[in-house]
């Protein structure tokens, strides 16, 4: 803890702050602000009511107008602070508003109706989290179904991808066969073709195979990625051939060499690829949008999109769902980021 603190408050040294300290810290704070402000803004906004979201100028924290329940009135009445006129300083509940005047009552004396100019009152507001944005997701919208769809696609696509990519990488790094370089170039070459170019042919294939509107239609086409093959191959090249020879002398089959020797030894690279794959699949939008048209197959990203209607957008639910969609990936990243750093260092460095 003290080491973290010492790291975070490191300076160039000397009694006073050097100008470069000022420069680095302002730069770092700017970075922190640019990175974190949108996220914090999103999280805070997700706790605002629909009305609060529409307010101009916007507030940073979620506020709600205080209400009071009075006998003889079915609905809770909004409270106002009176800022002028004869009732200045009192807190009154508004019954209704007519034009520029409002009918109000004093909660202490609910029988007397008072007429107040609307310019003389200000709403009584308090910091309140609108948790109904979140509870609604589970009640009114089928959040859990979308969450399951996204999770299923992410997990199975990642597993299939790791399996196929590591097998391809094994072959391309450890077997010498005619045309190996050509195959590798072909794999790397596909990196240069943008996804949008192959979108239509891919869609036709998926439809022909009967995977349209099925989760497998999203999972299978992304199973082999050139990036993954290349990343793993580069790492596997660093595993000495003698270890494989030793395993062959130990009567291990080629499959066993892959499973018991190559895979465990490539664990750092596989961890990196796994994290990348999880992020790609989870955040994928375009391809699921094309393949999945029925709402029971929607992923979270598609469900988010469907909140945004042509005529009306329900921002409160949209924001709450965005936060929930971000959470798993943020957690994955938080727990596995050290593997990304070490993995990328060891795949690139050696």
């Amino acid at each position, binding site marked *: 803890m003290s080491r973290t603190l010492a790291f975070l408050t490191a300076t160039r040294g000397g009694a006073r702050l050097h100008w470069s300290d000022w420069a680095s810290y302002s730069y770092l704070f700017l970075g922190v602000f640019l990175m974190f402000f949108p996220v914090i803004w999103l999280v805070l906004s997700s706790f605002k009511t629909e009305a609060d979201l529409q307010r101009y100028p916007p507030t940073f924290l979620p506020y709600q107008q205080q209400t009071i329940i009075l006998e003889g009135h079915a609905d809770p009445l909004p409270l106002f602070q009176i800022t002028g006129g004869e009732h200045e300083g009192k807190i009154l509940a508004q019954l209704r508003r007519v034009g520029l005047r409002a009918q109000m009552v004093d909660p202490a004396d609910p029988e007397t109706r008072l007429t107040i100019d609307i310019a003389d009152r200000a709403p009584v507001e308090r910091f309140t989290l609108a948790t109904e944005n979140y509870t609604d997701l589970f009640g009114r919208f089928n959040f859990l179904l979308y969450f399951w769809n996204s999770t299923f696609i992410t997990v199975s696509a990642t597993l299939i991808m790791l399996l196929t990519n590591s097998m391809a990488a094994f072959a391309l790094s450890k077997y010498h066969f005619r045309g190996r370089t050509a195959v590798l170039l072909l794999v790397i070459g596909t990196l240069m073709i943008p996804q949008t170019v192959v979108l239509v042919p891919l869609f036709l294939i998926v439809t022909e195979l009967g995977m349209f509107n099925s989760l497998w239609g999203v999972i299978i086409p992304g199973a082999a990625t050139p990036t993954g093959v290349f990343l793993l191959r580069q790492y596997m090249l660093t595993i000495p051939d003698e*270890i494989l*020879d*030793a395993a062959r*002398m*130990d*009567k*291990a089959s080629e499959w066993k060499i892959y499973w018991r*020797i190559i895979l465990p*030894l490539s664990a750092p690279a596989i961890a990196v690829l796994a994290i990348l794959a999880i992020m790609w699949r989870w955040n994928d939008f375009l391809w699921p949008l094309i393949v999945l048209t029925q709402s029971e197959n929607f992923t979270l990203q598609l469900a988010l999109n469907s909140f945004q209607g042509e005529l009306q957008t329900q921002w409160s639910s949209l924001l709450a769902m965005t936060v929930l969609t971000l959470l798993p990936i943020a957690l994955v990243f938080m727990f596995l980021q050290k593997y990304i750093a070490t993995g990328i260092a060891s795949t690139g460095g050696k």
Partner: protein
Amino acid sequence: MAAIELRGVRKAYGQAEVIKGIDLSIAHGEFCVFVGPSGCGKSTLLRMISGLEGITEGDIAIGGEVVNDIPAADRGLAMVFQSYALYPHMTVRQNLSFGLENIQTPRAEIATKVGEVARMLQIDMLLDRRPKDLSGGQRQRVAIGRAVVREPRGFLFDEPLSNLDAELRVDMRGEIAALHRRLGNTMIYVTHDQVEAMTMADKIAVLRLGKLEQFGAPLDLYNRPANLFVAGFIGSPKMNFLSGQVDADDRARLRLETGEVLAIPQAGFAQRSGANVTLGIRPNHLHAADAGPVKVAVRAVEQLGGESYVYGQTASGTAITLHSPGQTGIDLGDVIHVDAPTDEMHLFDTDTGLSLRMD
């Protein structure tokens, strides 16, 4: 039985031929060392025997059965690699049992065998460590243990001691020799160090540029080298070579490049009068003598107490090494005369490099 026989074995990578036809037969239970300078193809030859490398031409037979098309795993051989090639992610115990698991050995039997081998190699207290936590010598023992535990017909060692420090190397040399005596299996051992070859081998195969130069017992190679290369490679320090011409009238006289004349053996060698020959004399057979026929200017003297080495050169610049037991009175800068008994001399044809010895 695991006699290993090579018949006309060749290996080529495209145009480049690295093994140029080798015939060799190693009897069951023999400790055979392949020795040669780096790049001579000895490791390739070993990998060809193991089955990890294919052969281009010829036959390899183990125990009388041609194994050209039998994969490495089924040849019944075990190999110890130069880099040890231990599985880094497995403990020593897992390293030792991996091979046994692959041949579906029952769990209890694996435990017994691993325990036995670990005790034999004194690695039983290391069984739960990983290779990275072991010293070089310990890793070497584990690598040997991994080969031993499968009870193979034969062992192949690929320069197993080259990564160890000098002291450990001497110890391990003794242990491998002891292991061979205890197990009695055929072993093939590759090294570039002729001392290892001399001390451990029953038979030595000297290789150069993909060719077998000589194959025989260590002392045979030392006493009766077949050519200049073997004569120079086996024995430390190196044999002295003096080139000259056999006297036209007397087959027993050699005229050196420097004009000096010395007596050479008349019997046992097939030198013709007037032929260009190279005379080989081991440093320990040369001695300083006032009436010696060859003059040597001393360039360096090494006194080791129990023995001493004198380095010098002849008038024509040929390097000469003298080895004598005890301490020497010769000093740096002296000019001495040396002589050698004729029955310790070796004669080679200067042009072909072959020994002129008649058998």
